[in-house]
């Protein structure tokens, strides 16, 4: 258990979501194990006792997340309601507590996976692994980042940004790192053996995470070779793909792909007609933000943009389509492949970017970087906050 706690402590730091030493992760079997001892542990153990869970996470998000979450927590009457795909599907909403008080935290966490404590941090839990607590924490940071910028864009079009929004925006902008001009060091394809494919996928997945083009380390990746689609498994982390790639024969002769990514069908659709190639899917934040920005006044589809859109939209030249995760009637597997018939990339509303790879993943990762760079520039231009440099993020 201790190993798992330290692993996710480290991941939170490496992903830039929390500062070293600010994270408390507790794992519960017949007794509680902590990643480190802290005066807050007894209070969090009280919270643990009020829940039927096996792990708990409390951390102060790193900047600019902390300022963004603090701002949003003060606006929503006890609730933050982002509208990105991650929130709609998994979080639903993010409760806000009035303080670090166990009964109040318990009350919120009996209903939802996370609670924000203004001025302190975010508490999350897991039932089978601290990984769930880590994922939820990451999702809260991501969702709040997207909502903050979406709110700013909305305000900029109307009454203008409030003072705290401007201050937080300035902080966020100052913390943006440069994005590299293109993917460096990825293996050159086309790949001809299963081993080459698996290595290339693991390498590209890791690089995607290092570039912070996904939240929760999720996203998915695939490569088609000789009638077999190699695809990352559901809930796998893109930086830990060794042993987490399913080989799915496209002739439907085996069901071993039951653990494949939720987006298996979309990947198959995107690659239809190709002999070799792959798909890389990430959640670059500014791409997600810009995919949700639509200026159509009085649109009849307002409120259901995630499942249907009456117009064909482009963001920075990339098509944006509606679609939900998976294969339901509104599943993005229905909308995405068609959108990518004319190009190598498409965005799904509020969700992320899908990029087609040719013989290897250099082009796909480059496409995703380009999309994110363009979206970031466009977003900051609209907010009048273009930094002097490029637009990466260490936030």
């Amino acid at each position, binding site marked *: *258990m201790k190993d*798992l706690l330290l692993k996710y402590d480290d991941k939170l730091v490496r992903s830039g979501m929390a500062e070293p030493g600010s994270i408390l992760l507790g*794992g*519960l*079997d*017949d007794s509680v194990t902590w990643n480190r001892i802290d005066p807050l542990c007894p209070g969090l153990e009280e919270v643990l006792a009020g*829940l*039927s*869970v*096996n792990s708990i996470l409390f951390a102060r998000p790193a900047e600019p997340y902390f300022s963004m979450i603090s701002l949003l927590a003060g606006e929503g009457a006890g609730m933050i309601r982002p509208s990105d795909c991650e929130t*709609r*599907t*998994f979080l*639903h909403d993010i409760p806000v507590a009035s303080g670090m008080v166990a009964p109040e935290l318990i009350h919120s*966490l*009996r*209903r*939802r*996976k996370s609670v924000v404590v203004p001025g302190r941090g975010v508490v999350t839990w*897991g*039932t*089978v*692994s601290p*990984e*769930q607590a880590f*994922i939820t924490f990451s999702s809260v940071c991501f969702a709040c980042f997207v909502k903050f910028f979406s709110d700013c864009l909305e305000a900029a079009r109307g009454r203008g940004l409030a003072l705290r929004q401007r201050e937080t925006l300035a902080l966020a902008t100052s913390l943006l790192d440069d994005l590299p001009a293109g993917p460096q060091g990825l293996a050159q394809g086309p790949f001809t053996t299963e081993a080459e494919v698996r290595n290339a996928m693991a390498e590209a997945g890791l690089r995607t995470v290092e570039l912070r083009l996904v939240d929760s380390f999720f996203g998915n990746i695939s490569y088609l070779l000789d009638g077999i689609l190699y695809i990352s*498994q*559901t*809930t*796998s982390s893109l930086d830990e793909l060794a042993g*987490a790639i399913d080989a*799915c024969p496209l002739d*439907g*002769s*085996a*069901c*071993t*792909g*039951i*653990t*494949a*990514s*939720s987006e*298996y*069908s979309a990947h*198959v659709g995107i690659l239809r007609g190709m002999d070799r190639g792959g798909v890389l899917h990430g959640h670059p934040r500014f791409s997600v933000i810009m995919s949700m920005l639509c200026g159509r006044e009085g649109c009849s589809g307002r409120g259901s943009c995630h499942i249907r859109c009456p117009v064909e939209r482009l963001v920075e030249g990339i098509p944006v389509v509606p679609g*939900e*995760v*998976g*294969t*339901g*009637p*509104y*599943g993005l597997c229905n909308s995405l492949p068609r959108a990518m018939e004319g190009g190598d990339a498409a965005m799904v509303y509020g969700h992320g970017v899908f990029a087609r790879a040719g013989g290897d993943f250099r082009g796909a990762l480059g496409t995703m970087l380009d999309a994110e760079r363009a979206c970031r520039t466009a977003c900051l231009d609209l907010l009048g906050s273009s930094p002097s440099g490029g637009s990466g993020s260490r936030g």
Partner: protein
Amino acid sequence: MPARDSMILRVDLTAGSFEHRTLEQCAVDRWIGGRGLAGAFLYPRCTLSWDSPDMPLILMAGPLAGTSAPTSGRMCIMSRSPLTGTVGDCSVGGALAFQLRRAGLLGIVFTGRSRSACGLEIEDGSVRLEDASGLAGRDTRELRGLLSGRGSVAVTGPAAENGVLYASVMVDDCHAAGRNGIGLAFAAKNLKYVCIRGSGKVPVRDPARLSGACEQIRRLMAASPVIMGEFGLRSMGTGALYDLMHARGMMPTANFRRTRFEPAPGMNAPALKRLYSTRRTGCAGCGILCRKVGAGGVHIPEFETMSHFSALLENDDTACVVKANDICNRLGMDTISAGSTLACHAEIIGRRLPAAEILALLEDIGRGRGGGLELGSRRYAAGMGRPWASISVKGLELPAYDPRGAYGMALAYATSTRGGCHLRAYPISHEILRRPVATDRLSFSGKARIIKIAEDANAAIDSISACKFSFFGATLEEYAEAVSAVGGIEVSAQDLISAGERIYFRERLMNQANGFGAGDDDLPARFFREAGTSTAWMETPPLPREGFVEALRRYYVIRGIDECGLALPSKCIELGIDAQAEAADRL
């Protein structure tokens, strides 16, 4: 909760009388419905013999049944298990729960014993007992035909009439209440069938809120590759798991002496789909439709049945697997216990059973010519002087997940309150299917707490009567929203799990009252002594005994029971179970 939500029909089969009784609100609040509420009726009489006229037989729906909540059409059937002596319950699909709720009832409690075979027929407010003595010997498929037009139908087959200890109840033709010999509990009351037809509407306090919850649940189900993916349950049925179990070296083969079956890839779900031109079917109100029916109406076996009638028996004849499933369903026998008992028999006689012999033996068992095989593997193996050949826990044969490949599953088999059952905690969800996230399947680290939480959550799921398959996508968070919307009482996910803990603990108390203790929370010695089938790329060593024992010790601490496996008085008080025992008598 208004009367229509909590009306119970009590049927005294000795007197041939009925009584409608509205449950007290506190009972519904504490025990939810389904498995929880059924247990409240069983608890005061749990030490009676399974065939005592006073032993209740309970059919109980949950609060969501009959509403638009996804996969909420499950029904709990409970009594004391004739096979194991433990709590005996099954969650069964079809339209039984749906029709029951539409007829204005939440549950039916049978006591007594009819002088001759009878059937209960319910049509909205009308209830009557019909003579069924002329139906003796008919198989379940024939009965379904004879009773068509009378709504949802639950029937027993010849196996129950002939005393097979693992007799099942078949609902709406292809849905089995298979485990624990619940069909024999019907036969003990001379109850041959139950038909229910209802036309009312199940009240929903907040339809808009329910609609929102349903949307969230459906979204998560659609996002789950296990449920809705191209290789998932909707497309391939539960047989989708067959390839995965083989690939992970977890396919019980030759009565659990090996864990890989070389012909498996040619006998998988895609092969069945191709060979039998299958189509989807399923329970009332379900969007998954995981059941598969072939051309001509042939029932396509589910995963456990596929695996046990192939690998466990070393049988590479796919047609035999399908036929074996058909025989079991027609005669009304649990396929898992039947397959496992035959595998035990094969090991004892020291030879593989040919396909024709498998089919002939199944027919013999169901028709009363079992030669001891009708008693299940534990009694049969003991009678043959080879008790170790029964691969069972508390007398219930293990399903098709070899515990040497999933240590959480090992612990869950041992602690299950109904014996060797995969569904009480279903750690396969995270150990194999990566839901909600993957855990290390070859480690006991943290598994004691994980299993306890899952047992409690699944007890709650069985009590709201939702299908566990939904939870490969959705969570109790979304279902709590649905329960709140239907009942008008605010319920959180953790509230449901708390109720689940109470329900599970009470089941342990019932087993304890019947003499079960720590010695019964164990696995067959084979798993600790013999390795599974290793390959060049994957080792399958024996289960580490020390790790298992330590995980079990931790589980006891977490569950609130002592080292003898007996309930701590302090935990009983904390959960308020003793007080409930008295209240239960008044239900």
